[in-house]
């Protein structure tokens, strides 16, 4: 993660001026921090899998071991990642509209600043569910998950967090337990359910 955020402080400063006319914007960046970040992620994940696969038997072309495919695919991903890093400087992605269709005259695409609050809280909400669902059971776990998720949105009031949490607790019981007949723990193991 450190590598990714390292690319972002510069990016955040150019969030605004991306629409500046290139001729007068002398400080306009010519490379894309989005491409750079993508390339780094690819290289890191490719390396992680390639290194991890070394502990498995390689085998031969005739009889491949469990490590053969992950090692080769991991190395291919590394190579592609290096390619994307080069592309960040040579032929960067341009700014894109909603459909992901890029504008050839646009500014190089930026990774932009990560917004920590929504990212951390939404992922924390899912993580909370994963860690407590079997322990606390459906009612408490859903209530907590919904609360955490609500606060991911900046400016959420207490009512805007509590009302959906209460409503969703009842709704998920109605839909999944009564309606769809799923066998879900209502009160978890930690509560003796």
């Amino acid at each position: 993660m450190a590598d990714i955020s390292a690319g972002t402080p510069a990016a955040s400063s150019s969030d605004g001026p991306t629409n500046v006319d290139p001729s007068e914007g002398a400080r306009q960046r010519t490379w894309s921090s989005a491409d750079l970040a993508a390339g780094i992620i690819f290289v890191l994940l490719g390396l992680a899998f390639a290194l991890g696969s070394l502990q498995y038997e390689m085998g031969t072309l005739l009889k491949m071991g469990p490590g053969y495919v992950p090692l080769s695919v991991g190395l291919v991903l590394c190579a592609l990642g290096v390619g994307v890093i080069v592309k960040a400087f040579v032929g960067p992605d341009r700014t894109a509209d909603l459909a992901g269709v890029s504008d050839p005259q646009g500014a190089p695409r930026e990774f932009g600043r990560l917004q920590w609050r929504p990212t951390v809280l939404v992922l924390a909400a899912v993580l909370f569910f994963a860690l407590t669902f079997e322990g606390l059971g459906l009612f408490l776990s859903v209530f907590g998950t919904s609360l955490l998720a609500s606060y991911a949105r900046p400016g959420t009031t207490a009512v805007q967090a509590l009302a959906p949490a209460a409503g969703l607790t009842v709704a998920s019981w109605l839909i999944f337990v009564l309606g769809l007949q799923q066998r879900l723990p209502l009160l978890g193991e930690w509560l003796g359910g």
Partner: protein
Amino acid sequence: MDLFDNLILGLTTAFQLKNLLFCLLGVALGTAVGVLPGIGPTATVAMLLPITFGFDEPVTAIIMLAGIYYGAQYGGSTTAILINLPGESSSAVTALDGHQLARQGKAGTALAIAALSSFAAGTVATVAIAVAAPPLTAVALKFGQAELFSVVVLGLIVSIALASGSPLKALAMIVLGILLSTVGRDGFTNTARFTFGIPDLDAGFNFVSVAVGLFGVAEILRNLHDPQHSGRIVGAIKGLWPGREDLRRSVAPATRGTVLGSILGVLPGGGHVLASFGSYALEKKVSRNPKEFGHGAIAGVAGPEAANNAAAQTSFIPLLTLGLPANGVMAMIAGALILQGIALGPSVIQDEPELVWGLIASMWIGNFLLVLLNLPLIGMWVKMLQVPYWVLFPAIVVFACIGCYSIRGNIYEVLGIVVFGLIGYLLIRAGCEPVPLLLGFVLGPFLEEYLRRALIISRGDPMTFLTRPISATLLGLALVALVIAVLPTIRRKREVVFAEEE
């Protein structure tokens, strides 16, 4: 004559009251969930999939799943048109012109055109499947491991050539997807790979966690970034029915879209996504008034919607003939069928004629029910979109968690959402399309299996892929597709097709 008998068998199966009811229920539920902002067909099917696990008849399960799929597709288009928030890249194209129409107060026209061209395309594609499935099955029976490997490669490469964005990044996303799919027990040696000794990970990450993480969570995070995206509701819809002129102008684009979509849908690998982009580009090229595109061109709604739906339907062909899921949704449907004890592959059409033809007939019925259900309900869907975002997104998070957990009663499926949500979010921010990753993840295990088997059969000679004629042809086509995608001049032209409207 055979075709006629088969269709009769299919219709009698599909018209059984129980199957008809579950088809209707599937279409209704699929639309209801698919219309939620940020939830596309893949996530919808992922969430509603567990409903069918308890069914005793596989044909009922697949008919309902197909209904959910069509419903979700249509629901996604509704959201794309009304609030410019496509749940999946296939409906992103519909949003381009559909939302402009909605802003001009012609939302009713756009929604009706979308529904009608989908229905027309669905009808044609149903017939296409009925005609094409048996001969294609005959071809499929000739396929060895090498050919299967090459057809998967071709599908993956074509998805790069026609998708939007940088081909290099799309290729890297596919490779990353393949890599992530190696987590779990290796089918040949039974070695647990990358599981950190956790037995619950032996089966690998579930596809549903990947889909929900990539599309659901990442989409929520993206919307929280741009508050102006969420909750922007279009004013009242005036008049539902399109005028005679609008209908007349939709016929040709819808026809072209149907043909394009039916062909692309057969390819394993993102056919329905490519179909809508391809159709939009085509319509813009043949239009007498290309400047209109991006400012509310009817053809920009009718063509892609028809292509999208036709491809959604013909993407059942590789599943039914090769046992090969063409996209994420098909992978889930395949999973559900395997759970029901159905062995997928070229023999399924002989072994389970009732299942195959019942499904084909129910596709048409499903599309018909979709139009019947949705045209009167458009007013209600719009109300549903007025649910504020602060209610909507905790609901999406909670439902996604429960949905993933209930697949196997396994907490690691939910943890998978966190992992893939984070990876997906970062990569989407970095300008990578999530669809190729998903395709690589779905097709990766097949690729590895076919590769290893083909090499065992050829005694370790990798030239087997080039010396067998069908395999060599398929790989040659893949190479051509790759060259087209990468060639800068052609690429620039392709970008201009999309970008010149501004």
